[in-house]
């Protein structure tokens, strides 16, 4: 057996088992002959997909892994953790059981992704591979015989191996073990040979003399963008995602990735987006080669420009949206759209900034507060009569006397979502205190309690 599905593993089938034994365990097991070449091709297809959607530097890590250098790319996905869980979720949705880990070095990430209990794990930066200590030595990318011999000697965990004196180990197992340990700790650089699909439009420039100054990089960036735009123009494509890779003289890679909200072929804008991020590149001892790839390109539809006064209002915000999204991340720039829900905190959802506007808005029969607290805060209240607004309430240690009030506006829980909401009722009151400040309070509980004036009171918003 070279691989087993989750259902097969649950039935007791293990990788490495003879086929006859597996059949004995599960009589109706469906098996297929292993096809390493097809697996490698599928891994390359997956690498291309990751390249187009996630990070500029991706390489297949055969037989069953991908190594991704996230430097310069995670900001487009809302940080490392978000990127990782998003990636695993999307793979899961397409039927690939994936595990992922992020760490300072390839070695540590390799071990963590395969042997950490958590399928999605991000090691804290700068720990030098300490997160991999409790993992088995099989995570070290050694020959299987070497791993078995280490186990025989009593080294079951990577941490024990790291503490042991290095010289006798190297004498016994060869230099690979020391090298792997150094790679795990990040002491030896391990360059990733980036996967490149010949279909992607790529332009590159090699320099006789390594370059390093930011101005020089900016100048060559402009030249590369110029070349790329010409290449894209001949194919009728526009750019959605571009990667600028820097090959340093010390054989490491640096990358800048930019994304645009819609297909783009405007040189000035693209240069601006790339140059905004040059400060994140560390040229080290110099850069030998720069290459610019259109990782994702789409057919570019030219839009008709207008100068009629009535249509001028909707200025083109694409450039601004790209600028901001590349600076702070695409998730942090959004528009709000209404959701058909009476529960206030569920009535808004975020949509992409350039999503078409369908003109929908919220029902405006009842006023809504300008600031909505993330969690309603419990308040103590004095009310004269059960279904009256409160006469006074205490919030954050301050008592306020209610002068005027409006309400109640009754909101029922959405029973079709969760069972707990079947009985949930809120009565909202809009109250004004003696200083004129206005608050949004509600009494919560089941219908009987709220109608009888027994529910708990919360403050939900400020007008």
């Amino acid at each position, binding site marked *: 057996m070279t691989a087993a599905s989750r259902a097969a593993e649950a039935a007791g089938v293990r990788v490495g088992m003879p086929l006859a034994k597996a059949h004995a365990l599960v009589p109706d097991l469906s098996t297929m002959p292993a096809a390493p070449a097809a697996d490698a091709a599928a891994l390359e297809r997956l690498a291309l997909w990751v390249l187009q959607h996630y990070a500029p530097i991706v390489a297949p890590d055969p037989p069953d892994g991908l190594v991704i250098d996230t430097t310069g790319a995670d900001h487009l996905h809302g940080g490392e953790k978000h990127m990782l869980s998003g990636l695993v979720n999307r793979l899961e949705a397409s039927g690939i059981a994936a595990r992922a880990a992020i760490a300072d070095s390839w070695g540590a990430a390799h071990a963590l992704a395969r042997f950490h209990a958590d399928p999605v794990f991000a090691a804290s930066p700068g720990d030098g591979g300490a997160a991999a200590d409790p993992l088995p030595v099989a995570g070290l990318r050694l020959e299987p015989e070497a791993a078995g011999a280490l186990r025989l000697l009593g080294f079951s965990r990577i941490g024990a191996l790291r503490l042991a004196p290095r010289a006798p180990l190297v004498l016994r197992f060869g230099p690979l073990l020391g090298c792997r340990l150094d790679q795990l700790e990040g002491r030896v650089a391990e360059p990733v040979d980036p996967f490149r699909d010949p279909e992607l439009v790529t332009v590159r420039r090699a320099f006789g003399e390594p370059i390093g100054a930011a101005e020089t990089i900016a100048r060559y960036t402009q030249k590369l963008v110029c070349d790329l735009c010409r290449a894209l123009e001949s194919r009728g494509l526009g750019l959605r995602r571009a990667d600028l890779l820097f090959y340093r003289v010390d054989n490491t890679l640096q990358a800048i990735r930019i994304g645009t909200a819609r297909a783009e072929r405007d040189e000035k804008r693209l240069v601006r987006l790339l140059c905004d991020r040059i400060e994140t590149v560390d040229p080290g001892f110099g850069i030998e080669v720069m290459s610019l790839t259109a990782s994702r390109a789409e057919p570019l539809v030219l839009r008709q420009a207008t100068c009629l006064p009535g249509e001028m209002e909707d200025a083109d*915000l694409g450039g601004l949206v790209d600028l901001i999204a590349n600076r702070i991340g695409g998730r942090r720039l959004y528009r709000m759209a209404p959701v058909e829900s009476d529960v206030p905190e569920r009535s808004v959802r975020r949509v992409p900034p350039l999503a078409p506007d369908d*003109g929908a808005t919220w029902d405006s029969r009842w006023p809504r507060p*300008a*600031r909505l607290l993330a969690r309603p805060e419990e308040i103590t209240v004095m009310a004269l009569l059960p279904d009256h607004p409160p006469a006074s309430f205490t919030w954050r240690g301050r008592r306020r006397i209610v002068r005027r009030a*409006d309400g109640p506006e009754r909101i029922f829980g959405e029973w079709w979502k969760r069972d707990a909401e079947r009985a949930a009722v809120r009565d909202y009151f809009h109250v004004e205190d003696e200083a*004129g400040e206005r608050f949004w309070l509600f009494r919560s509980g089941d219908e009987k309690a709220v109608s009888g004036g027994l529910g708990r009171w919360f403050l939900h918003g400020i007008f």
Partner: protein
Amino acid sequence: MPAAAVNAVVADLRDRIRRLDGRALRGRGVLPFEVPEIDARLPEGGLALAALHEVAGAATRMDDGAAATLFVAGIAARTRGKVLWCLRRPDLFAPALAQAGLPPGRVLYVEAEDEKNLLACFEEGLRHGGLGAVVAEVSRLPMAASRRLQLAAETGGTLGLALRLPHSRSGVDPYGQPSAALTRWRVSMLPSAALPVPGLGRARWRLELVRCRAGEAAEFEVEASDAEGRIAFSPRLADRSVAAGARHFRASA
């Protein structure tokens, strides 16, 4: 010298100063409040469009700036084009903005993780020139930053509104430091007028024009902005101790 001649000389000087400022070139004009009492206090009869303005909440108590938020939303609603709203805490409730005249299709939100990025996005939005207004919820606005923003607003011809929200309830006055903004406003709540039936009427605000370049500080009592973002002069002034609607101060900053 007769009065008319003096006025002509003064007008000519003002014109020259304006040209030195670079404001004559922009020709974006002003956004009037459509309340004669307030517009009369502002140079050229309204909020200058290609400029930076600051709005803060009540000074006495660290309030949540909800009234200031609605005031800003009302101003932004009366501009043309989309509005960029830069914020740090996502506690702004979009339906309230829609009720102040900013439908969801008009507002783009930027949630910056730190103050530096927030100011950078604010500046980028002002410089772009295709937006109606840019609002940013800033807690600190040093002189250098406000100068940059003011220049960006002039370049892009966009209305910039700095909503000064306190980040901690430390009691620091947001207007303790000078800034390059053209006007500084302070909005606080006032008790609203009693209705003949139980319920709540339109909210009332005390609107303080703390600083106004080429103008004097003033204070107004107004009714909160309506569904189109318009404020109205409060009719309930007769029973206040202040006889005239707007008290005058010497310019304080």
